[in-house]
């Protein structure tokens, strides 16, 4: 196998080995329930950060209400399970679709708003959803939250052990991130980036900017809904407090710290902002201060984030073999 093909193949295989081989083996060996929880939460937030990266990092729409769709997905999954006995197999996709549908409806009137006003509109929407989750007690059970009595019930097989749950979550998150990766690292992704750079100009080049914005918002919210469902099925308890403004900001901070426009960066940001407070366990109460401080520091000192877009795109094109190879000078440019 030529050297050019070998490295990217190795990188991809390596990632799969770590995620589905090494890490679970390590977790099983250490056998601490709490560690499983941390890893699962990290995976869920990696998906949340990855999906927000599409909206805010790639398409440049500052979104202050992503947690709302996370919450909608979580509640759909939880309520379907507790009220109607509908389990994981159907609940998961329905959660994603439900979140996507609400995102679509919300986006219809607001997509034409200019950046800062769109941001504030998403803030308002996020708050409205949170209010509904908290106060529409007949449906959402209010501040007490919803208890889910069954865990993951995949096509009839009940998976309630920690390692099985891990594999299911890892599989779904990997698949979702793969889809996001394909969207971001493609010519479709370039079209999205043009929205961020200069959307009036993109219009003049034949890009249907309004439709594209709606698409990316809906797709990303779908994945937020999936993440929410995963949260519901793994923690088996949802409450409105998990889906408030602070949560939206946490996810935004992950994307900003990692580097706007960089998918690997968003994932790194998620890992960092979940693990950091865990590592500083003793001072767990100041997690939000850390989030604020990290976000501030990175905007100020590392405006491109930890793994900025340019480096990330180059990395993906070369290391992950996403580049078009028949370029005249055999350099890796463009997308496959």
């Amino acid at each position: 196998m030529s050297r050019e093909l070998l490295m990217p193949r190795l990188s991809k295989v390596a990632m799969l080995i770590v995620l589905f081989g090494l890490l679970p083996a390590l977790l099983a060996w250490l056998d601490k329930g709490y560690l499983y929880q941390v890893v699962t939460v990290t995976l869920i937030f990696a998906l949340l950060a990855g999906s927000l990266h599409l909206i805010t990092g790639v398409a440049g729409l500052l979104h202050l209400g992503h947690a709302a769709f996370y919450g909608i997905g979580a509640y759909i999954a939880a309520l379907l399970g507790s009220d109607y006995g509908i389990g994981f197999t159907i609940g998961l996709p329905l959660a994603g679709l439900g979140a996507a549908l609400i995102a679509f409806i919300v986006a219809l009137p607001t997509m034409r708003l200019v950046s800062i006003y769109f941001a504030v509109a998403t803030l308002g929407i996020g708050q409205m959803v949170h209010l509904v989750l908290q106060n529409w007690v007949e449906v959402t059970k209010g501040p007490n939250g919803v208890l889910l009595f069954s865990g993951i019930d995949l096509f009839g097989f009940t998976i309630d052990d920690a390692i099985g749950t891990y594999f299911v979550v890892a599989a779904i998150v990997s698949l979702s991130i793969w889809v996001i990766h394909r969207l971001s690292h493609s010519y479709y992704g370039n079209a999205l980036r043009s929205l961020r750079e200069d959307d009036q100009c993109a219009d003049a080049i034949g890009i249907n900017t309004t439709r594209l914005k709606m698409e990316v918002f809906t797709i990303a919210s779908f994945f937020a809904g999936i993440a929410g469902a995963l949260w519901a099925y793994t923690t088996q308890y949802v409450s409105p407090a998990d889906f408030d403004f602070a949560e939206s900001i946490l996810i935004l901070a992950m994307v900003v710290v990692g580097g706007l426009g960089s998918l690997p960066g968003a994932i790194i940001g998620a890992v960092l902002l979940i693990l950091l407070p865990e590592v500083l366990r003793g001072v767990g109460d100041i997690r939000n201060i850390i989030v604020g401080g990290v976000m501030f520091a990175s905007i100020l000192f590392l405006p491109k984030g930890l793994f900025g877009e340019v480096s990330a795109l180059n990395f993906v094109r070369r290391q992950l073999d996403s580049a078009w190879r028949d370029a005249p000078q055999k350099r890796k440019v463009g997308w496959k």
Partner: protein
Amino acid sequence: MLEIRDVSRHFGGLKAVDAVSTSVNQGELVGLIGPNGAGKTTLFNLISGFTPVTSGEIRYKGQTISGLKPFAIASLGLSRTFQNLRVFPNMTVFDNVSVGAVGAIGQSAFQAVFAGSKRANRISERTWEALERVNLADQANDLAANLAYGKRKYLEIGRALAMQPDLLILDEPAAGLNDSETADLSRFIEELHGEGLTIMLVEHDMTLVMRICQRVVVLASGQKIADAEPAIVRRDPQVLEAYLGVDE
């Protein structure tokens, strides 16, 4: 190919464009000139759909385009550049031009994720063609923001060419260029025209316009005051008066 019929654009009491009628036929190289404030850029914005017309009609290839959104007009084969050079600064040269290609060829979200390489390859090839046409192929991986001013002009043109338009509108392409750069650019535009592209351009640089345009339309205070070959226009007393103090 492009018909402008009695088009006006009013901003309150101000008539930025006042009952202008002209046309651009297939294969022509038409220049649009006029003193500052004559309404040239407004007319461009009307044609490309950035500003709505107050009255009148604009037709392109027989279809009414006044009232259509910019992206719809662009997908009909009309592409434009901008006076103040709007490239996508945080994207590479290649990626910039590829947006033009993907605008024309199209790639949906579903295709981006699941489809094979065929469509992407088409987009890639189209992008390379355009890049080579504007001589930016060896800077394909450079960030657009780092490009020199003159090169950025060609980048914008390359991006517009990637759409494979039938009509290319250039908004003050020579702005900010020195004499030799302007000469290169005018040669380049002539080449494009020679390849069959219909071109309309707005320019302040008289030498360029008079030299390469087949026909010149002159606007002053929103109205058309001349529409003929360069040789005739440069002697037109109304034109000379509008440009009071400016030699041909």
